[in-house]
């Protein structure tokens, strides 16, 4: 029951929007080209590195989009109404993240024309099968959670009320589905013991992925709202609300750290941490950014009171999370080679970057226009 008025962007803002638009178009063109000629000619993917930038981003974006279920859990299930103002932006963020994931998935699939294949053909043993169904169902839930924004704008109060009435079951469904697929992404890592380095591979992977999705969701909203506050030139969401999210995430990351290190101790893989090889260095970077930074920084009042402090910390968590998700694909050995002299290396191609950045730019643009045109935020 809120409305917004369209605020014209500043000159800088126009440039930013213009660049985002250009990147979107570039992404569109390269994406179509990839569909026309195939993955071999457009990406650096190969039989040794069959998943690359796009899948890595997908893994990370799903966690980022976990902002939606996390906020739904916080607001509706845990009934912490203080954070209600963050809920709609979170749903928007989640919805757009998931749409971005789906677009990239479509581009990455070898047979984009068969993206629907998991519907008639089931393999209940496959983590990816379960993830596909969960994402299909969850995106539907997200759409349902997002729909009121549309229908409010379109002045259809009856539909809005109907959806509102079912908010708890919808929310529980959404959180349950999210729990499943966020953790099953971890199960994918579990299914690839050869491809995942012992510093990451663990029986706890599903739980760790779930927890890090929750933690990420909280920091995602901090980051997104800090950027939105800057872009719209006013405090769409108050700093202390966001600080509260950060403080809450400390507990999540602390639990994560205990489980992660404890598991390494239990399996005898602690030594890898101190090996001073590439894997251990990447591990430490990840722990520093994704786990230690939020625990330490969000606990500090000075950080929580500072916009810059909150933003930087949230950014660190995001980057750390990306490290973590990419580790599932790249920390272990590449796919084995058959004979002696096949070379294995991967660096994403220009088209891979262009498509990825294009999709992210499109999502950012969509977020901006949705925030302008739909009742995402309360009236001042």
């Amino acid at each position: 029951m809120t409305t917004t008025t369209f605020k014209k962007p500043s000159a800088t803002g126009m440039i930013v929007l213009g660049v985002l638009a250009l990147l979107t178009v570039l992404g569109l063109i390269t994406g179509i080209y990839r569909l026309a000629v195939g993955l071999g000619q457009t990406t650096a993917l190969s039989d040794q590195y069959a998943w690359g930038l796009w899948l890595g981003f997908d893994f990370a974006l799903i966690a980022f989009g976990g902002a939606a279920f996390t906020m739904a859990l916080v607001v509706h299930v845990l009934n912490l109404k203080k954070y209600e103002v963050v809920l709609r932006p979170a749903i928007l963020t989640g919805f757009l993240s998931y749409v971005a994931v789906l677009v990239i998935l479509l581009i990455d699939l070898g047979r984009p024309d068969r993206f629907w294949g998991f519907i008639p053909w089931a393999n209940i043993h496959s983590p990816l099968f379960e993830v596909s169904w969960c994402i299909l169902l969850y995106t539907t839930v997200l759409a349902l959670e997002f729909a009121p924004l549309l229908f409010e704008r379109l002045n259809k109060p009856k539909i809005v009320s109907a959806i509102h009435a079912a908010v708890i079951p919808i929310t529980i469904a959404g959180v349950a589905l999210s729990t499943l697929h966020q953790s099953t992404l971890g199960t994918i890592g579990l299914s690839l013991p050869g491809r995942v380095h012992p510093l990451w591979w663990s029986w706890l992977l599903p739980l760790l992925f779930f927890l890090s999705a929750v933690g990420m969701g909280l920091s995602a909203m901090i980051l997104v709202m800090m950027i939105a506050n800057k872009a719209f030139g006013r405090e769409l969401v108050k700093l202390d609300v966001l600080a509260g999210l950060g403080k809450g995430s400390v507990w999540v990351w602390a639990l994560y750290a205990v489980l992660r290190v404890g598991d390494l101790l239990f399996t005898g893989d602690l030594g890898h941490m101190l090996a001073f090889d590439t894997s251990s260095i990447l591990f430490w970077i990840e722990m520093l950014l994704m786990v230690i930074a939020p625990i330490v920084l969000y606990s500090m009042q000075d950080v929580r009171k500072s916009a810059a402090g909150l933003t930087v910390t949230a950014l660190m968590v995001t980057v750390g999370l990306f490290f973590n998700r990419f580790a599932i694909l790249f920390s272990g050995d590449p796919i084995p080679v058959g004979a002696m002299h096949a070379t294995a290396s991967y660096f994403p191609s220009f088209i891979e970057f262009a498509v990825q950045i294009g999709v992210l730019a499109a999502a950012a643009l969509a977020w901006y226009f949705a925030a302008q045109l739909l009742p995402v935020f309360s009236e001042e």
Partner: protein
Amino acid sequence: MKAVLVDLNRCTGCRACQVACKSWNDNPAEVTMCLGCYDNPPDFSADTWSLIRFDEVEYNNKFHWVFTKRQCMHCEEPACVTVCTVGALEKTPNGPVIYHPEKCIGCRYCQYGCPFGVPRFEWDNPLGLIRKCRFCVDRLDTGMEPACVKACPTDALIFGDREALLTEAYGRIADRPDKYVNHVYGDKEAGGTSWLYISPVPFEKLGFPVLGEEPTVHASEIVMNATPVTLTAAIAALSGLYWLTKRRDEGMKEKEG
């Protein structure tokens, strides 16, 4: 359950098997160049399903030049079958792990899942599919042995019942312990495979992955099997949490009110 026993002491590296596979499956030749060794093509690909590896190995004070045939191992509990999103890969009771190209969506999870790096993708096809050795299932169906086995001049490859071949393999090792390392690769690895190997040198020196006796997807299988429980528990926990917090709020309101 059918299997093939590969005796690396008998293989002379003639590569009749490599060409027989290409011929039977009508797979085109790749454009290759000499990379400083005999191995060519250098790796499996959508068009190359069976390869001979050439390894120069010093072992037990003797110089060995070992020729190893590599192809799909047709595991007893294949990781690719477990992880395939749409169940396009299937382990048949007779042994071969077959592929249903009409279902494949090209997600390439099987490429990641396979501990042997077998499934390969048609990168240059905009509507690309996964391709790999099929254990000549069409030949097996008519009572013939796989093309590679048929072509082998020295009986380095023999086809038969898995149990019988295991007995044969261990028998050969016992007869000539000076010529074989005491291990049948594929007996237990990753839950056992249909392609069994005996060798004069340790298998790691030939590029075989060191694998435990459990299938590599063992852990994820257990977790996946728990999915209904997980879902039920999540819904129950969330409902419980909601009920608890609602009660607390209502309780607080009552107090205020």
